[in-house]
């Protein structure tokens, strides 16, 4: 390998590393479980108080969600398999 190619490869390495890490994460997230997301429990007040204490303190009590009847446009999102749990 020529010295110019060695320099170019050196410059390419960080980006290639990030790309490998991204692909590894995406494969893991889609084939095994989703490590960076979990089921959404924001309507559970204890969970909200844990992840966003300032908002829970402001609300003071669990919010009453709107009805799900007669939604004008709606499609249930497809959710991944989760492997994280709240701490």
């Amino acid at each position, binding site marked *: 390998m020529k010295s110019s190619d060695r320099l*170019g490869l050196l410059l390419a390495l960080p980006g290639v590393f*990030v790309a490998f890490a991204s692909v590894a994460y995406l494969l893991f997230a889609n084939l095994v479980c989703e490590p960076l997301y979990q089921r959404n429990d924001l309507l559970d007040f204890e969970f909200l108080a844990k992840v966003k204490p300032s908002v829970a303190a402001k609300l003071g009590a669990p919010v009453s969600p709107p009805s799900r009847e007669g*939604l004008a446009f709606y499609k249930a999102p497809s959710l991944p398999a989760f492997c994280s749990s709240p701490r």
Partner: protein
Amino acid sequence: MTGSALPRFATWFVVGAIVAVYAHAIYYMPIPHNDQFREIYYTLAFPPGKIFSNFLEAPGPVFRPGEWVMRYLIVYVFGPYPSSYNYFQILFVVLVGGLALYAISCRNWIDAGAAITAITFLFGHHAFPATIEGNNTFTNGLALLAMMAALPILQSKGGLSSQLLAIAMSVATVLTKEVGLVVPFTFIAAAILGFPGVRRWTALVLLVLTLAYLGFRFTTLPALLAETTAQGRAHTGSAYLANITASPIMIVTGEPYDGNWSEFVRRHFYPWRVIRIVLGLATVAIIFAAFCLRKAAAEAFPEDELVDWKWTLLLLGVVAASSAIAFHYTRHRFGGMALPVAYLVLYRSLRIVLWRLSSLDGRKWLRVTAGSLLFAFSLGWASRAADVFFALRYLGATTLVAWVEHYQDYRTNDGKHPESLPYLDSFYWAALELPWPTVQNDSSFVKKWLGERVMNR
């Protein structure tokens, strides 16, 4: 795999991986209420004819018919669901990635090293996620996309189809958002600077169209200035000047945040903030070095691959034009229009600097030092590109909490239009059913690295 195929594959792989991981984060981002619920509701509830007739009868302080066309297209193409906006933004990232690859050539590892670093600059620069941060800023994304598409036109032979495309793109982006003015400006400036891809008659047509638009806007501008009393908007000549002068510094370093210099010392110097400033200044230094090397580099590179006066002035012009448009208020996203030209110039600059370093005979210490600095530069931009994924994830978390926190306020405000409430509830459930980004589980290292208000990066 041949020697030249491997560098090309590595470059494609990096673009594909960045696009895929950003798309993954965008897919799980809820639509925020502010600035756009009303617009999205109108596009879902009313036919285009009614919206456009209302729009023309009583034009508001901003004139953006193209934005309405885009909103209708999003619904028609991807379906009448909140997720349609996510699909649209994923399409935007894919197109930017494709055009980024189209703009460069990759024959050896010098090309690949330069291309991969420039690509992480493009996706990791603070202006890029700012075009995604609330989906009302997708119009800034459109201007960025048009500027990416302008790159091959500038370097073309100036055929009729490329001229018509330049005019069509300019009209579409200007009618979508005021920042789109940078697109015709770029073509006109390119014709003046002698780029082969833009004919004089094209520049003349664009100049006439731009002047006509500016004439129309200046007659309606008083309404804009009288109406917007929001905090953070400039209202005096000195405040306009402060925004215009802060913007180019913000495009390079990300500071001062929102053009506000007092924020510079008030905010924590998290590692990402220091890295952002250093990387911005280093990018300018590398481009300057390539410009200084243009005569020596002419021995090894064709004339149309150098960083000459033409490209340097075009880059400065695009930055200046983006800054001028930010006179009323300035944000990171105003740098988005300058990113494509900066991306291509950085790619060319890195190739030239690498070539020069490899041709230094007998000065190993210089090669090792400069090579190490360039490796740190590339590592820095790669880390910034990775940061954007986390930033988009945090943005999703913030928006999800905002729906719970402010839903009653939204309902009270939108109660004036009771027919819109079923749409509001649809947005609410569409958001609350998305998965929760486990930001509370992030290690203290990630929190220290990214800071508390990640989107303010």
